């Protein structure tokens, strides 16, 4: 297993390097201009100077190498400093390496990302957890009672769940619950700190709609998967063996079948984790949750290339890592698989 992980990690390096080059190249060719959103009253020569101050006049390969260095050398130092309190970089040093700065905010991209992470993780994480918690029992029961009324209704609802785009269902929710009933706020307040019961209620209120929409969507996906995985297993010989031993149905389904069926589902869940960090661009947009997804889309719109590059590259790393995690999980959960 260890050798398998090492092997996969070694393979990940060239993959990630190629990805970083692709990302950098695509973004570099992108036609946007960070000064494009400035009012026309700002004269063009001023804009030109702004572009120079952002380093846009330097050749691509130099910026790429600098960015790589910033990403892999400079930023980790800052993160370690933050976590441990050690002083790795002398702030007085005029040649101290520069962090990756966002063109829009002129602030370090990593700070922005860390600032955006809590709300994204909270909402998407909760939606993910609720989705899975809802989906697994539904999927199990639907498969167990295949073609029963529960299964048919469940199938229909889950189908609707992932057929109705979140921007449509989200829109309807806002109109019903924020505008008409005024139960929940239509804006998500990221500055809210939960200090007492009241602020806790406030926090819950502002999370209900986005979490509901997303968990419904997640649950729909996972429960379909769970159901078909259960169906794959329910007809296998070992289930008959378990029944022939006189075990009761609960044990047969929950110990024998579920155990086997969960293996692909858990790996699917692992593969979905990078998505949590990626943020739900559209849902965040609709419910005004300024999370990572919103950061990405505003960065794209504002041609904030360092932010887009860094974010997408982090997503790529997460995807690679969680692909590996999924494979490792498979090996752990399924005794038949031995990686070497």
């Amino acid at each position: 297993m260890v050798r398998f992980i090492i092997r996969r990690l070694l393979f990940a390096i060239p993959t990630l390097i190629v990805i970083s080059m692709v990302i950098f190249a695509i973004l570099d060719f992108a036609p946007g201009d960070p000064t494009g959103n400035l009012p026309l009253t700002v004269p063009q020569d001023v804009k030109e100077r702004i572009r120079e101050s952002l380093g846009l006049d330097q050749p691509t390969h130099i910026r790429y190498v600098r960015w790589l260095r910033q990403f892999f050398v400079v930023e980790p130092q800052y993160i370690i400093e933050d976590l441990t309190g050690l002083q790795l970089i002398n702030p007085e040093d005029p040649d101290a390496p520069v962090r990756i700065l966002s063109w829009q905010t002129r602030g370090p991209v990593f700070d922005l990302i860390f600032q955006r992470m809590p709300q994204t993780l909270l909402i998407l994480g909760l939606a993910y957890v609720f989705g899975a918690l809802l989906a697994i029992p539904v999927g199990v029961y639907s498969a167990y009672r295949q073609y029963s009324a529960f299964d048919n209704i469940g199938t229909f609802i889950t189908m609707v769940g992932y057929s109705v785009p979140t921007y449509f269902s989200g829109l309807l929710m806002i109109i019903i619950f924020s505008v008409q009933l005024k139960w929940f706020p239509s804006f998500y307040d990221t500055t809210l700190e939960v200090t007492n019961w009241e602020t806790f209620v406030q926090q819950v209120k502002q999370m209900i709609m986005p979490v509901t929409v997303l968990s419904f969507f997640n649950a729909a996906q996972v429960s379909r998967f769970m159901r078909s995985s259960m169906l794959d297993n329910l007809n296998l010989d070992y289930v008959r063996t378990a029944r022939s031993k006189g075990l009761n149905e609960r044990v047969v389904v929950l110990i024998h079948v579920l155990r086997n069926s969960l293996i692909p589902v858990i790996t699917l869940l692992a593969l979905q984790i990078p998505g949590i960090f990626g943020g739900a661009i559209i849902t965040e947009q609709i419910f005004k949750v300024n999370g990572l997804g919103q950061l990405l889309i505003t960065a794209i719109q504002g041609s904030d290339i360092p932010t887009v590059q860094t974010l997408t590259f982090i997503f790529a790393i997460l995807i690679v890592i969680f692909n590996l995690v999924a494979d490792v999980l498979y090996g752990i959960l399924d005794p038949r698989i031995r990686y070497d």
Partner: protein
Amino acid sequence: MATAPASLQVDEKFELGEHRSLWGDVWLQFRKHKGALFGMAILIVFILAIYLGPFLYTVDAAYIDPIVANQGPTLAHPFGTDNLGRDMLARMLSGGQISLSVGFTAMLISLSLGVTVGILAGYFPILDNPLMRLTDMFLALPILPLLLVIIMLFRDSLRTAFGPETGIFLLIVTVIGATSWMNTARVVRGEVLSVKQQEYVTAAVSIGTVNRRILVRHIFPNVLSPVMVAAALGVANAIITESALSFLGLGFPSDYPTWGRLLFEGKDFINLTPTRVVWPGVAISLTVLCVNFIGDGLRDALDPRLRGR
């Protein structure tokens, strides 16, 4: 040689069941899936309406008439009008053409890429590793941001090259197709690996059939099942992706009313003329729902375990 050996005479008694082709069998099974049938029926109605509708309902989707702006359904405008007084029904019909064409074309692109890569990787061991690493890399690329960037990047050059409509259409379907083929490739590869082990492939080799014909005659037809399911899901995925792009304001330009675009433009009017949101929202959801149901039905119908149950 002309006479059969004596041991075989009785075989005249062989009886065969009612002649059913393989796809006939699939269809029979598919028919059992009520959701899929329902989905198929609605989708056919949609397609007919969208492609034949404009011949019957000849209102110009682009005609502006501020006098009748922001109307709900009326006799003159059965689906109401938008804020410029354009007829929503006409816009829905022409939008549907684009949305569905995007769905199907993107699916075809994604499928042909996925099937090609999958078959090559599965059949030729030499290509397997490089192609699968390529697939892994595409899977690890953060698709949505790149999608957005690519669209912004090439939108205008393609518009200039192919005209405003074809250009953006090509771009969107290519981009959606080129970023959604990986799962098909993986599934097809897996399937090819198992089909390759089947004795009928060995039989073809032992006959002396060349690789090209083995691929075309033996491998490809037998990996069609997962491909068909992937096709159905691919259409749904492409329609959703296109509408999501439009919803972010990055899909088709505003004078090009896809359903996603209509929904995006209508969303602010949800209180004023709710129909502007309802029609495109329901159209997208229903189409995707139908396609998903069809995919589900196909999956069941093509599943050898379930067949003949």
